Structure formats: C-alpha cells, structure tokens
C-alpha cells in the first residue's frame, strides 16, 4: 500500500515535471534546427546546426556584455539583500514613526504598472546626467518592493523571544538582523536573491533606454540590439540568445536551491 502510494507519487511528479521540462527541451532543440524546420514538433533534426549560435555570435560578440551583466545583476542582488533586509527588518520588527506609511508605500509601488513610470524615470536619469553609466543601470534597482514585502512577511514569523533575548545580551538591531535573522532566513533570502538576480539579468527595456554605448551594454540588451530582427528567421536566433541567458540563472539556482529547504536542526527555530 505504501509502496503503491509512492509509485503513484513519483508517477504524478514525473508527468508534471515532463510538462515543465518538455517545452524547455523543445526550445533547446529548436536552437539547433535549421530555420526551415523550426515549426516541427520533434526534438531532433536530421540537419542539426549551430547556425543560430553562430549568427548570434557573429552579430553580437558578447564577452564584455557578459561581464557588464554580472556586475550589474551582482551589485543589485547584493544591495537588495543587504539594504532590503535592513528595511524589511525595520518594517517587520521595529515600531517607529512612518512605519505604516512605509508599508503602504511599498504596496503602492507594486500597484503602479511599470509602463507608466518608464518615461518619468528615464527623464529623471537624463536630467541628472547618468545616461551611459553603470549607475543608470543600477540605481533605480537598489531596492525592490517585492523583495522587501517577501522578507518582511517571513521576518514576521520569527519569534519575538529571539529578539528580546538578543537585546538583553546588548546586541544592536543590525547585529540581530545579520547574526540571528539572516541564518534563520536563508530560504527567503535565497528566493529573493534568485528572483532579484533573475529579474535584473533578464531586464532589457531599461538598459535599452539608458545605455547606448556598446561597451556598457548588458547581455540581453546586446543580444536584442544586434542579434534579433524582424521576420520569421530570427526566432531561432532569439531562442539561442535566451538559452545563453538562461544558463547563468540555472547555475545560480543550482547553487542557491539547497537553501530553500533548510534542515530544522541548524535553524534554531524551535516551537
């Protein structure tokens, strides 16, 4: 009976996983297909080719752009984790004037669609003379409302007793955050990290607006500007470009994912 249940579980998981992986495999396979075969269903092509990758590389040699992307996404992720958790901690666990206001404002930021704030944001960057700088790519993303909201929600679950005893030991709030909350919050920090990194990594529109110099371009931007084009023929190149983009995120995920489920033993959260 138990074995039967287990087999059923694995069976269901396998089918579910397949529906998630197959499109991805199909996309990977499509990048190796000649353009005329692009519409076909199969994962394999008798005429497999590297043409899409070659075209992409010829049009947009992306060595420098890879470094730019790493720098930008790395800085933003660090900032969102460090500064974001400081903010989230204050919002979740400290009573201070303006706290409710800040909470509401954070929600408010999420409610306004980005399509609307794009132009004012851009004029702001132009007015302060940051066009064609790394700062233009990084500054508007130093904080992230979704991340703060998530961290705040998780920080709310950590028992007050831990804070009280730490304060009793004379710990400052920053120390409490980094020595007690951080280790307990690895799951949420990991989610925030992967989600921030991914968002910044895949962002195209903002870099397109604020950077016009090739040596400052991020990877997706460079690929968008140089590799893609109108017409049916470019879809293969586009998928090849997104394969190139996906790989670093998958690696980052592989590194961080073991934090999603921490063993209770080390966490110190005891009921």
């Amino acid at each position: 009976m138990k074995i039967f249940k287990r087999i059923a579980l694995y069976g269901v998981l396998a089918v579910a996983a397949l529906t998630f992986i197959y499109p991805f495999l199909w996309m990977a396979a499509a990048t190796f297909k000649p353009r005329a075969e692009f519409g076909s269903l199969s994962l394999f092509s008798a005429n497999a080719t590297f043409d899409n990758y070659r075209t992409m590389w010829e049009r947009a040699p992306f060595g420098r752009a890879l470094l730019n992307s790493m720098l930008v996404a790395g800085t933003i992720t660090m900032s969102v984790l460090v500064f974001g958790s400081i903010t989230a901690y204050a919002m979740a666990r400290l009573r201070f004037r303006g706290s409710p206001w800040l909470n509401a404002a954070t929600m408010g930021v999420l409610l306004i669609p980005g399509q609307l704030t794009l132009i004012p944001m851009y004029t702001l960057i132009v007015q302060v003379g940051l066009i064609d700088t790394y700062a233009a790519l990084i500054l508007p993303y130093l904080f992230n409302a979704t991340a703060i909201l998530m961290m705040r929600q998780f920080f709310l679950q950590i028992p007050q007793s831990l804070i009280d005893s730490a304060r009793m030991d004379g710990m400052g709030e920053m120390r409490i955050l980094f020595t007690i909350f951080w280790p307990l919050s690895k799951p949420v920090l990991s989610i925030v990290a992967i989600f921030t990194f991914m968002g910044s990594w895949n962002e195209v529109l903002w870099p397109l607006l604020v950077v016009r110099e090739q040596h400052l371009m991020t990877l997706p931007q460079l690929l968008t500007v140089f590799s893609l084009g109108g017409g049916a023929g470019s879809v293969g190149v586009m998928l090849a470009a997104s394969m190139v983009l996906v790989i670093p995120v998958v690696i980052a995920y592989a590194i961080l994912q073991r934090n999603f489920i921490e063993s209770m033993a080390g966490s110190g959260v005891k009921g």
Partner: protein
Amino acid sequence: MRAEQRSGSVMAAPYTAFLLIFALYPILFALALVFMKWDLVTTPSFAGFDNIRMLANDGRFWRAVANTFVFLSIHLPLQIATALALALALNRPLAFLSFWRAAFFLPVVISGAVVAILWSNLYATDVGLINGVLVRLGWAPVPWLTDPSTAMPAIAAMVTWKNVGFYVIIYLAGLQYIPRSCKEAIEIEGATSWQRFRYLTLPSLLPQTILVVTLSTINGFQLFIEPYVMTGGGPLRRTYSIVLYLYTNAFAYQKMGYAATIGVALAMIIGGVVFVQRRLIGKAEAV
C-alpha cells in the same frame, strides 16, 4: 522604546530616500498626467477631468477589466492549488529531489517574451504540441488562441505554468517554519492527513498564502507580455488586458494622459482587490 524608534527610522531611512526619488517622482508625474493631455512630443496641456470621464465611458477599458477578472478567476485558484500541491509533494524525502525542484523552477527563469513565443507554438493550431497530442488521441485540434472562448483560459494556464515554480519555493520555505514538534504532536493524536493539512499546514502557511495571493494578484492584473506577443489582444478583444490597453494608449497612440489615467485606475482596482482578499483570508497578519 525610544531606541527602537530611532533605529527603526535610521534603518528605514535609505529606503525612504529611495522611494522619494525613484517612486514618488514618477508616481506624482503619473498622477499629474491624469489631468493632462500629452502626446509625448508637444508640451502637455491641462485637460481637467476629460480623461476620467472618457475612462468611465470607455467600453474597451471595461472590457479589459472584465478580461482581467476572467484571467484572475482561472489563474489564482489554479496557481495556489498547483503551487501548494507541488510544494507539499516536494517537501518530503524524495529520490532526485534537486532534479524535481529544478524542473518546476525552469520556466521561471526564462523571460516572459520567450515563454510567450514558446507557448504560441505549443498552442498553434497547425503543428502545436498540444494539438499534436490531441490529434494522436483522436480528438479534433482546438484553435486555442484564435477561438474567443479558449484564448484567455489558455493564457491563464500558461502564466500559471510559468510562475508556479516561484510560488512553490515560497511555500517550501514557509513549510520549514512549521515547528516539527507541532507536527509530531498532531501525528500522535492520530489525525488523518487531510486533517493535518487542514488544521496544521494550511494555517501555518497563512503568511505565505497571503504573499502568494497578493503577488499573483498583482502580477495577474499586470498581465501584458503574453497577450502582446501571442494574440495582440484578440480574438474579439477577449485577451486585451488592462496593461496592454495602457501600453497601446501610451506608446502606440501617444496618449500619455489617458494612459496614466488607466494606470491610476488599475492601481486603485488592484489595491481594492488586494485589500478585500486580505480581509477574506484572515486577520492573521497582526503580530
């Protein structure tokens, strides 16, 4: 108390400054535009309540609102149910655990535009994967994206597919906070697994559920890239989302004032819906 007050203000100061610069300015800008007529090229002119009046009588806008609710009514339950089910399935000792978790997360990391293209091809009437399977099973192919009745559900299913991995992780993280002693206690009392889920797991996951509902509601209301790439808002405007309408007004018609009005209305609608949701889910937020 004083110390807490002070450190709170100090710790929140950078974020406050950030909000003032990068959020308040654009939001005030957008609010001002509600009362303006502006084509992005010439100087804006004052329009009073014209935009608001126009919005109130704009059938296309309300059609988009209705479409978005259709989308949410499919997407939200589906999203929560699948995320929760997968999280519970993955929150146990399993062979190849990393593989399973990675599998469900894959769609999250691919950009929305690429996913939209991918699914256009899966949904394609002619050689799409889904119709391929249907035909092999002896059914007639379904014009998923070109039939007015199936287009929006098809998009909702796809968005669920794309985002579920993210919410699975949130739930998985939340599951770690359920104290093991509670689990053990309730197991000893001989509760059925349904009871365990209903009376222990679900209440313990309330913060995560609130988060998932809030985030997927906000995301759902901001549905854009999928209809933009896959259907252009058709067929018969059935997949025309609010943000697609906003985008079209802003960048295709260059009616920035009207676009801002749509944006502000959208923010108010989302705010209202999220507020009601939180009320309904419970008052568990108070700590």
